[in-house]
């Protein structure tokens, strides 16, 4: 119940689709989605494998609450060894694809091997088959989804696919579903492309059963009320989306700009959630057309945006004069503040291209930022860029590079390497603002200390979604801590990491935790799933998931030395704002973190810890 208890194994080399029962022992230990798929991956691949070799596997996974009536119960993930990082990768997405996979009666799909020619997987309830995708290879996500729906005369088909970015080997390509929802980070789309797998199209009509219908409806209704009555999930996110944060974080002195040289951006208000609501001069319409929700989501933080039809990016280009996925905070930061670009329409266009061609706007924008710094230093010139003037704040350079990167052309192919390889190539590796090769998201860890430890210890490289201490340090959820102090942050980060590990394994969206604690979540899982699911058990699942991911990375060759931050954040003090004079105090927090985790001073889980967690 609530688990479909079936997985689909697709061998791309042999071209076969096989049904298997879900390992319920593992489901009881890892719940689902992120945790359960990481368990399968760990058992089935050598962590030292080249991410782009056929021996890497790619798992599409749902949680037990995916497809149920639980608010935000539409999440699904892609788990693999990441192309950008070489670390364990788990990229989470919303939209409607994950629920549809559950409706078809599958918890997970495991892809192994590599197809000799481009294929896509078609799932219609119990039937699954690989189909020749040569007609879709070279096409965008938008064209592929439209084409598949037309081909099968089924507008209700849900599609997750890669764009050209995943085909041409952009290191940070993602998997995009429902046109603008993405498993965006760590290069999971690059792995999918390396397997010659273009898309997964699914239609499910079987539905999802929960264990105790009455208890489940009671628990989910109560929890929905909590979301509705909360200021962040009931008002802030529906009205402004995650972009509610742009001005707030800028004022905090934690909005990195110009490749993290500064922590406040003069143009922040121009690209904020508030700016997205202002009528523009040309047609009197705002950038924000409306908010939109993922499956089952009662928050509705999604942005649906329309670009000014007279803007240089879309003039005479009808395919972009539509309403589609607009700027989330992370994308607005990476495409805008990170590079000093304050043109809202240009950012929205670049974001459209990221969706259309399937690549991560965070890594893309941050890599452009690193390239702009190299350009300012004279290390890169118009000779390398093919004539593009990579000056800070150049919107035209940004949008041109978005198009080139998506197709893997010209200097876009170099941006597609990601900031680590790009800065190494030009002899300045310190200018890559990344951890384990993955670029930072939108919080400067000098102004929000806990995020430094979060980034440094994140198993998938720099990431805000593994322990969002911003909730505590800035928003005061569940309690306010001082963003400029590193005291007590080790314990805080661990608590957030473990709780998030459980939420990511359930099928729920981590944004619910602005309002929900595990006390609200446990009763929903308990009613949906067989067995008893308490808060303590969920925390144990989260800790187990965290340690399993850690173990995978250690086996892959990472060590405690990789739990670090770029010199800029550890040595160069913030120049302005409340964080002025601060660096990140990682050296103070990390030993405490290791000790609290039950790891050695080198960052290795002790045998005692592994035994306790049955690992």
């Amino acid at each position, binding site marked *: 119940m609530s688990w479909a208890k079936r997985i689909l194994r697709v061998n791309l080399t042999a071209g076969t689709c096989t049904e298997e029962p879900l390992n319920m022992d593992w489901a009881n230990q890892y719940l689902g989605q992120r945790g359960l798929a990481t368990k399968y991956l760990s058992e089935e691949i050598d962590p030292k494998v080249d991410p782009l070799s056929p021996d890497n596997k790619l798992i599409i996974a749902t949680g037990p609450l995916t497809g149920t009536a639980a608010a935000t119960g539409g999440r699904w993930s892609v788990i693999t060894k990441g192309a950008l990082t070489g670390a364990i990768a788990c990229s989470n997405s919303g939209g409607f694809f994950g629920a549809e996979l559950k409706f078809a009666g599958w918890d997970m799909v495991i892809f192994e091997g590599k197809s000799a020619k481009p294929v896509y997987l078609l799932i219609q309830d119990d039937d699954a088959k690989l189909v020749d995708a040569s007609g879709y290879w070279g096409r965008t996500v938008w064209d592929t989804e439209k084409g598949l729906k037309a081909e099968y005369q089924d507008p209700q088909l849900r599609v997750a696919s890669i764009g050209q970015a995943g085909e041409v080997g952009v290191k940070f390509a993602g998997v995009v579903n429902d046109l603008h929802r993405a498993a965006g980070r760590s290069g999971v789309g690059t792995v999918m492309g390396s397997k010659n797998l273009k898309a997964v199209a699914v239609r499910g009509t*079987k539905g999802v*059963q929960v264990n105790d219908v009455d208890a489940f409806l009671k628990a989910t209704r109560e929890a929905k009320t909590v979301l509705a009555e909360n200021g962040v999930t009931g008002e802030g996110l529906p009205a402004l989306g995650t972009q509610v944060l742009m001005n707030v974080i800028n004022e905090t002195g934690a909005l990195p700009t110009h490749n993290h040289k500064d922590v406040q951006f003069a143009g922040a208000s121009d690209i904020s959630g508030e700016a997205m609501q202002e009528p523009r001069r040309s047609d009197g319409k705002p950038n924000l057309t409306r908010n939109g929700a993922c499956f089952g989501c009662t928050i509705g933080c999604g942005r649906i945006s329309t670009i000014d039809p007279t803007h240089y990016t879309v003039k005479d280009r009808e395919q972009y004069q539509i*309403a589609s996925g607009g700027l989330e905070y992370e994308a607005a930061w990476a495409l805008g503040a990170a590079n000093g670009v304050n043109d809202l329409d240009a950012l929205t266009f670049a974001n459209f291209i990221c969706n259309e061609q399937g690549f991560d706007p965070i890594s893309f924008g941050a890599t452009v930022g690193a390239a702009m710094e190299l350009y300012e230093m004279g290390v890169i010139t118009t000779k390398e860029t093919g004539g593009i003037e990579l000056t800070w704040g150049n919107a035209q350079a940004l949008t041109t590079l978005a198009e080139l990167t998506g197709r893997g052309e010209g200097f876009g192919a170099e941006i597609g390497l990601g900031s680590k390889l790009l800065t190494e190539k030009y002899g300045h590796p310190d200018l890559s603002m990344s951890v384990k090769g993955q670029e930072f998201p939108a919080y400067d860890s000098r102004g929000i200390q806990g995020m430094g430890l979060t980034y440094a210890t994140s198993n998938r490289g720099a990431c805000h979604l593994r322990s969002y201490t911003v909730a505590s340090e800035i928003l005061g959820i569940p309690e306010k801590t001082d963003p400029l102090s590193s005291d007590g942050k080790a314990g805080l980060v661990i608590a957030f990491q473990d709780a998030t590990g459980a939420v990511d394994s359930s099928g729920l969206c981590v944004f619910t935790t602005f309002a929900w604690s595990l006390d609200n979540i446990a009763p929903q899982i308990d009613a949906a799933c067989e067995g008893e699911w308490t808060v303590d058990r969920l925390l144990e699942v989260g800790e187990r998931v965290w340690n399993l991911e850690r173990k995978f990375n250690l086996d892959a060759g990472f060590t405690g030395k990789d739990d670090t931050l770029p010199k800029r954040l550890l040595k160069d003090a913030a120049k302005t704002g409340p964080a002025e004079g601060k660096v990140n105090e990682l050296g103070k927090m990390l030993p405490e973190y290791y000790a609290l985790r039950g790891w050695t001073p080198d960052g290795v889980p002790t045998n005692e810890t592994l035994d306790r967690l049955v690992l």
Partner: protein
Amino acid sequence: MEKALVLDAGKCTGCEQCEIACSMENEGVSNPAKSRIKVFNFHDEGRFVPYTCTQCDDAWCMQACPVDAITVFSATGAKVVSDALCVGCKVCTIACPFGTVNYNPASGKVIKCDLCGGDPACAKACPTGAITYTDAAATGYAKMKAWAKATDAGQQASA
């Protein structure tokens, strides 16, 4: 007092909680494929439109049914399909001008909105107030109120 489902596309975010609630209420399973209400996503326009049976007074489905399986439930005015009588001929799906009567291959019967006997699950589940169950004699009340506010000349008059 007869009540009606009022659907306001302007408030719909496309979350499908109504579809989940409908299938849970009527089929005991979360399954939009068995929902009697459907949210349409007009992507390029950024519009989400919930859509279901309007319970026509002059109900063509009811008139077309050759075996009289569709009758009026007097308490709500809903046109209700009797599973015992329905033979699954689908004539009603052809007769309905709006497409809101649909065939369920699993049961071999047609399914349509029956207003959940007077307590529609979709309206209760909608998080944005896009679906309400209100006075059938004033289904345009919210729109009237909005226009009344927009066209209110009170301030100028008193100035």
